[in-house]
């Protein structure tokens, strides 16, 4: 691997930047692997990276039907936070946040993690009570989260409108200062480069079309558009398409796939210092380093794989943005798009083993998977390598829908769904 350092940058600057090589190989698939990861987004690539780095499992392939990070990894609004209510979720997302803090150094790749603070607005008495409960719960779990009055929120984010006469006035806010954003493409590329350097084969334009099982029911190979690839273990990390891929192995999933939209504005000078989220009025906004406002909208009402989404959903979000931040009322939006998110009944992810021996699944991240990328890959890699759930992943089994031990973040967090 060609490492990035001040010296390598200076040397290449002096030689006209002709010395840079490809960051990862594009190998032909081998006849078989110890582990095949289905899905080359952030979570899948992170899984491969930690398999190689922490567990010495290097005979691994990541199969991606399109290009790396072309799915939800490249379509989300890059918000990172760990202020979840329940102990199980808090442990999982905090594990990820701790990895974010050292990720650029670990990968030797700048993922532009920017802990600029994530502020969640409360607009109703119910919001205030729920967010204060979150603040207390987070503090008990050692996670930073603090309550701000409307004036303190305005001081932290000056563009915010805290007038009392708007439709949903700001009654306060919960602020996680360690929350923030990172550059989504760099996350996929950094993990791909790190995994490749440790021997992982990253195979793009390779769609899985079937999962083959042996006489005992265990997985033995995946059928792909680039031929049959043998596999002792298969990890499915296919986000919105998880139901489709798991169906190939005959496993029904408690998932529904919905389009989730985001949009960006024309780029402007730095005007917005933090990330602001409002679950009640459906507005999620930050400013990218390029200067665009990055705005997250809601999901469509119905199951779909269309990767678009209704215009009225995006318009609804812009209504809220314009009321909360009147200075953006005349901004023009540059483009919008949709990604397909897989939502579980309890709005918590599924990480772990399946009824099929050798088949593992990491899915159900719903509308908020990006923030978990490093932690998700880390605990899923451990689960695959040891064939035993990582302690942090243990509560997030597929089996919880049979036992009834759900991790009900939806009702608890009043998140927008």
């Amino acid at each position: 691997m060609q490492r990035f350092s001040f010296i390598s940058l200076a040397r290449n600057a002096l030689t006209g930047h002709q010395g840079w090589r490809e960051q990862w190989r594009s190998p032909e698939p081998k006849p078989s692997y110890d582990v095949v990861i289905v899905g080359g987004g952030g979570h899948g690539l992170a899984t491969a990276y930690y398999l190689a780095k922490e567990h010495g499992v290097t005979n691994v392939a990541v199969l991606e039907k399109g290009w790396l990070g072309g799915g939800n990894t490249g379509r989300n609004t890059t918000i990172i936070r760990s202020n979840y209510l329940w102990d199980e979720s808090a442990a999982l997302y905090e594990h990820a946040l701790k990895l974010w803090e050292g990720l650029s150094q670990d990968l030797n790749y700048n993922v532009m993690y920017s802990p600029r603070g994530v502020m969640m607005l409360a607009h109703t008495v119910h919001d205030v009570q729920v967010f204060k409960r979150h603040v207390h719960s987070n503090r008990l779990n050692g996670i930073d989260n603090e309550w701000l009055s409307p004036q303190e929120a305005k001081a932290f984010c000056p563009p915010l409108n805290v007038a009392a006469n708007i439709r949903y006035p700001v009654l306060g806010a919960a602020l996680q200062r360690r929350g923030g954003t990172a550059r989504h493409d760099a996350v996929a590329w950094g993990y791909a480069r790190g995994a490749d350097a440790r021997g992982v084969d990253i195979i793009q334009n390779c769609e899985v079309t079937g999962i083959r099982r042996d006489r005992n029911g265990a997985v033995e190979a995946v059928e792909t558009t680039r031929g049959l690839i043998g596999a002792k273990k298969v990890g499915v990390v296919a986000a919105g398409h998880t139901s489709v891929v798991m169906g190939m192995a005959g496993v029904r999933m408690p998932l529904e796939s919905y389009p989730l939209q985001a949009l960006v504005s024309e780029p402007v000078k730095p005007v917005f210092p933090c990330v602001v989220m409002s679950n009640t009025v459906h507005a999620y906004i930050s400013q990218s380093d390029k200067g665009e406002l990055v705005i997250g909208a809601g999901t469509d009402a119905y199951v779909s794989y269309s990767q678009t989404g209704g215009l009225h959903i995006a318009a609804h979000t812009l209504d809220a943005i314009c009321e909360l931040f009147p200075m953006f009322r005349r901004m023009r939006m540059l483009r919008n798009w949709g990604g397909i998110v897989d939502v579980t009944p309890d709005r918590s992810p599924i990480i772990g083993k399946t009824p099929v021996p050798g088949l593992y699944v990491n899915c159900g991240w719903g509308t908020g998977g990006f923030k978990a990328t490093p932690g998700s890959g880390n605990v899923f890699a451990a689960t695959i390598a040891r064939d035993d759930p990582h302690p942090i992943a243990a509560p997030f089994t597929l089996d919880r829908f049979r036992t009834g031990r759900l991790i009900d973040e939806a009702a608890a967090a009043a998140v927008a769904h």
Partner: protein
Amino acid sequence: MLLITCPHCGSRPENEFRYAGEAHIARPENPSALDDEAWADFLYMRSNPKGVHLERWRHTHGCARFFNCVRHTVSDRIIATYEAGRPKPDIAALVAEFEARGARAP
């Protein structure tokens, strides 16, 4: 925004309706006889197909009645709608009829 044909009121914009999940998931006849596996399947497991989906909608800002809808989940085209309580339709026949009406393939 979808244009949805309510079987009772006719074609209306999507924001008059509420989506109500996968159709034809019948409540078990004898709930006390079910094991955990069967309960999980009834409560949580969904077909979530990339293709033709049978789903329930409710015309909340109209007749307020539930009905069923046949929709392709990639194009979002609605192939047919029918009253609640009718048996599961023959999807292949509905798609053929949809194409015969001169519409593009779903």
